[in-house]
């Protein structure tokens, strides 16, 4: 290629270049004036927790439109995964439990898919997070409710009661019939409890719905089950900031609370299981809601474990699993799953994390919201 061209062609090249540059200038000018604003919508009443949708939209009314979609979907999913209430015209998780040992129940596709996914991952991960642990969890819930109502009556459930309950927790007796769309608990006394997986799965489905509806830059936060869609649409940041709370701090959604660290993420979910969410005290000992299927007692390896993974349903499942596994085993498990990272928060707030996530953490690895 030579550069010896007639003057006219040279001029044409320059005009093209000038136009390109002008376009660049125009682009930077427009970029500076992005008119996206960050809105937040919070509501209670689903999954026994505060749910919030944080997102960038061009107007309040646009955001209201999306948050309405999100809230209604959350309410619908909450009814499907509910094990305490029945709803007319809906066969939900409670219907399945009520029909244990009696008959298979035809359930909504979301419930079928969640149960299938939970059984599948139970097998893959060494069987720590068991959705058929309902009877044992119910025992702990009974004693927790008692203690919260009257702290002087706080006590640890008797071992005999827990062991009796544990005889009805065989996940292999949860029969999913894909073709018929039914779930059947083979044994009377079996109880599905989706508490460890339903919130994360719901956040995943709601996030996908919102994304389809057009909200392409948002966070769906179901009580700490954080599902991130896209990048912040403020024209400035490339990643959202997720604060890792001090387990000893008051649990609140106040983002100005001091964080142990900040993780900068996009298109990812970040789900935490901790001993500080649902617990009660017997004397000075804390009894949280995350129960080891072998000891039938709360796990005490960590204060909290957070899992980062694209799918929020899997991340929720894994955060429970990792909370119940010793650090070395848990770490080996996480490292065997591509795309998954985890942060373990020990008593005294020391943290350990997988190598990959370090770079996205502000304090641990110098990460920032501007990282690509």
């Amino acid at each position, binding site marked *: 290629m030579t550069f010896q061209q007639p003057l006219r062609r040279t001029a044409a090249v320059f005009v093209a*270049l000038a136009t390109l*540059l*002008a376009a660049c*200038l125009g682009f*930077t*000018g427009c970029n500076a004036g992005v008119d996206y604003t960050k809105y937040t919508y919070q509501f209670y009443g689903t999954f026994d927790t505060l749910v919030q949708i944080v997102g960038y939209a061009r107007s309040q009314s646009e955001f209201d439109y999306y948050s309405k979609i999100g809230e209604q979907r959350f309410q619908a999913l909450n009814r499907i995964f509910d094990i305490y209430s029945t709803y007319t015209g809906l066969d939900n998780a409670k219907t399945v439990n009520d029909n244990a040992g009696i008959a298979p129940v035809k359930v909504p596709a979301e419930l079928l898919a969640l149960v299938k996914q939970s059984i599948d991952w139970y097998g893959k991960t060494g069987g720590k997070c068991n959705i058929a642990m309902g009877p044992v969890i119910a025992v702990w819930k009974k004693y927790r409710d008692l203690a919260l109502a009257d702290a002087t009556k706080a006590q640890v459930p008797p071992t005999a009661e827990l062991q009796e309950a544990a005889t009805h927790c065989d996940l292999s007796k949860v029969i999913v019939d894909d073709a018929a769309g039914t779930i059947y608990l083979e044994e009377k006394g079996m109880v599905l409890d989706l508490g460890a997986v339903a919130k994360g799965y719901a956040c995943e489905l709601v996030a996908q719905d919102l994304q389809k509806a057009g909200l392409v830059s948002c966070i769906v936060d179901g009580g700490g089950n954080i599902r991130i869609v896209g990048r912040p649409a403020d024209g400035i940041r490339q990643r959202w900031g997720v604060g890792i709370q001090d387990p000893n701090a008051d649990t609140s959604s106040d983002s100005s609370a001091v964080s142990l660290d900040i993780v900068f993420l996009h298109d990812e979910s970040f789900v935490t299981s901790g001993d500080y969410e649902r617990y009660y005290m017997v004397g000075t000992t804390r009894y949280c809601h995350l129960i080891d299927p072998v000891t039938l007692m709360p796990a005490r390896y960590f204060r909290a474990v957070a899992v980062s993974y694209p799918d929020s349903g899997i991340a929720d499942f894994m955060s429970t699993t990792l909370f119940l596994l010793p650090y070395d085993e848990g770490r080996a498990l996480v490292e065997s799953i591509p795309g998954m990272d985890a942060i373990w928060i020990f008593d005294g707030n020391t943290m350990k994390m997988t190598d990959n996530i370090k770079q996205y953490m502000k304090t641990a690895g110098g990460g920032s919201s501007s990282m690509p």
Partner: protein
Amino acid sequence: MSGRTFRPPSVTDHPHAVSAYVRRLVADGILVSLAVVLSIVERWIPLNFLIPVPGIKLGLANIVTLFALYRLAFVDAAAILVVRCVLTSLFLGPASLVFSLFGGTCALLVMALLRRGDGRAFSVYGVSMAGAAAHNIGQVAAACLILQDLSLATSYLPMLLLVGLLTGIPTAAAAVPVLRRLKKI
């Protein structure tokens, strides 16, 4: 071209050498006055309507620097630049002196560097665009020094650099016909 000497002629010099010296002095003088006029005139051009970046200029005086670099020598260009800046500041106020000197010097050095090679590597357009960008860098550097703050370098300079690429083109386009017709002074 660049090997021209710059010393006053002595009585032993050939008469042609004397006249060459005088011609050069006169040329420098004419170019200074031209540069001053262009510096003032360009303030009347409402470039902001075309490109909404505050404080931008076409840099018409750069035509003179370009011409001096190609047809005279580096010393002539430098001398013209300094005299032009001082004279202009008499008309436009002393605040502009630091800027035009800083920017002008940066532009001069970069253009003198790129001009070497007589057009094999860079055309007048390339030299002019690089000069305009260097001019803007020098000006912002001066502003950063005065304000004792670097934020202009990141918030303002990027836009100025792109504008410099644009304004460097008409400057070169104006210098080209002059260079074509005035091969020798």
